[in-house]
């Protein structure tokens, strides 16, 4: 390339890139580094004290893995990290199969675009409102779910779910299914739309049944969409904060505590920045599991 042209190109690249780099460096990268540094700060220099403290903490409002009132084979609290993991373990498969199932059936449904829009609402509303709505859904006086169980004669499930450690966590997880299925449905619907019909027609001609077509042909062909849904749902579950904050604040008795909330508790209530940062780092490192998976996929499809 000519020298002149090259110099000009360099100028353009710099002019276009600099504002972004400046903002990201100052308000994104430096704070992230800062959090690392703060997490290692102790009374006597640097060390792992904060991490040790955070992991071995047993008070129910901050415990990560071993809350003091834990009893084997008993309802929560099990510790915030465990709650996050349970959340992922229940939420991800439900969201994947519900979203895919509905997207697949939508083809034969009257008013399918209305159904899609309704399901997508959970993606549009503020999570704070989502949390309040979850609370409303499971409210013993007003909520639909307890009412349903009352009609079925199951007394244990006809009260306000989030007030009891046995039901609070599962109520929030089911509520997050309600909020997030729209994402999965939308991704799968888009993927199904772009799927050439000839695959399914070929399978039909080959004599496959409806179930076989779904599990042997459609589901494998939607692998990419599934990976996207799984990664994004995991990231969302690990960062979950708003809906817990407004509905239970981690209670009752720490039964719905999650990582992000503990980080906030250390930061705003205990004013223990070191431990707060350590919690954030642990959360970030766990988020990097789906994160790196995501990055690898992007980089591979990019080259």
């Amino acid at each position, binding site marked *: 390339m000519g020298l002149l042209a090259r110099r000009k190109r*360099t100028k*353009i690249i710099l002019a*276009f890139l600099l504002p*972004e*780099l400046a903002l*990201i460096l*100052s*308000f*994104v990268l*430096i*704070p*992230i580094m*800062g959090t690392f540094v703060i997490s290692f700060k102790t009374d006597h220099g640097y060390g792992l004290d904060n991490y040790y403290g955070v992991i071995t903490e047993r008070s129910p409002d901050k415990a990560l893995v071993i809350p003091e009132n834990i009893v084997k084979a008993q309802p929560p609290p099990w510790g915030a990290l465990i709650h996050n993991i349970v959340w992922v373990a229940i939420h991800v498969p439900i969201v994947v199969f519900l979203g895919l199932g509905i997207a697949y059936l939508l083809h*034969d*449904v009257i008013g*399918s675009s209305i*159904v899609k*829009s309704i*399901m*997508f*609402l*959970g*993606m*549009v*509303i*503020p*999570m*704070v*409102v989502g949390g*309040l*709505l979850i609370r*409303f*859904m499971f*409210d013993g*006086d*007003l909520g*639909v779910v307890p*009412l349903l169980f009352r009609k079925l004669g199951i007394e244990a499930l006809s009260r306000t779910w989030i007030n009891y450690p046995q039901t609070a966590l599962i109520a929030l997880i089911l509520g997050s299914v*309600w909020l997030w*299925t729209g994402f999965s449905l*939308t*991704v799968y619907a888009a993927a199904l739309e772009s799927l050439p019909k000839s695959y399914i027609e070929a399978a039909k001609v080959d004599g496959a049944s409806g179930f076989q077509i779904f599990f042997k042909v459609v589901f494998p062909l939607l692998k990419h969409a599934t990976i996207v849904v799984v990664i994004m749902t995991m990231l969302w579950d690990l960062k979950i904060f*708003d809906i817990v*904050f*407004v509905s239970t604040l981690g209670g009752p008795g720490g039964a719905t505590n999650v*990582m*992000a909330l503990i*980080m*906030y508790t250390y*930061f705003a209530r205990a004013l223990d920045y070191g431990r707060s940062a350590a919690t*954030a780092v642990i*959360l*970030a490192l766990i*988020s990097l599991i*789906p*994160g790196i998976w*995501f*990055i690898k996929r*992007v980089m591979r*499809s990019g080259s």
Partner: protein
Amino acid sequence: MVRRRGKKLIKYIVINIVVWALAILWVLPFIGITMVSLRPFSEVVVKGWWNIIGQYTLKNYVDAWTDPMYSLETGFRNSLIVTIPSTVIPLFIAALAAYVFSRFSFPLKTMLFITLLIIMAMPQQMSVIPLFFMLNKMGLYDKLQGLILVHSSWGLAWITFFLKNFFDTLPKEIEEAARVDGASDFHIFFRIVLPMSLPAIASVAAIQFTWVWSDFFYALVFLVSPQNYVATLQVATMKGQYHIDWGLLSAGSILTMSVPLILYALLQKYYVKGMVGWTVKG
């Protein structure tokens, strides 16, 4: 033949019933709080909100909007002051960067791009403690400007990623034609590339607006005075610790979510494209 068709019809009916039952279940909470917000609480508690006969009133909305301590009027104003610049600024800056990422090669490009992807996976929690100190030093703590700065900076990564993917799909020939026709790089970007990218820009704007409007965590950490509260903070505060005024809370919730919902109603296509697109390449 007839039996086959009959079987098909039954299947069709069952599918419709199942999917629509789910859709109704999904929309039920929205109907519920709408009813609660419009009716005196005593009536709702006794008869249930599904009972549509009774008194209707807008009192809850008026209360939520004018509450002396946590008025949603203030919340809305603050939310708009934060949300509009926090949508426009990163959109503009990221569009410039995304264009460079899409069209030019330069040293460290891959590394910078991976950095953006890592930022996208980072939880907000990873940044707030140092940001809290930084904003304090800059005099922007408990200020809406501080929140704008944080939202703008954290929106850059995903918007850059999204727009780069979009620019990658635009045919390069159009820009080359413009170059041969005599247009400068700036001209090409502002007059050719940006106008062609309006759908993508609409998607980004809709989603970034919704996310900033809906944000709770940054607002919770960086705003303390009630007169600076954004709408999401106001609603969360209305909840109260021990007693829940469901009427007020429902009205507040409906008002707060109405803004993104209206936007969604207007720009539905762009929302869906955006939500799907920012996760998927191409």
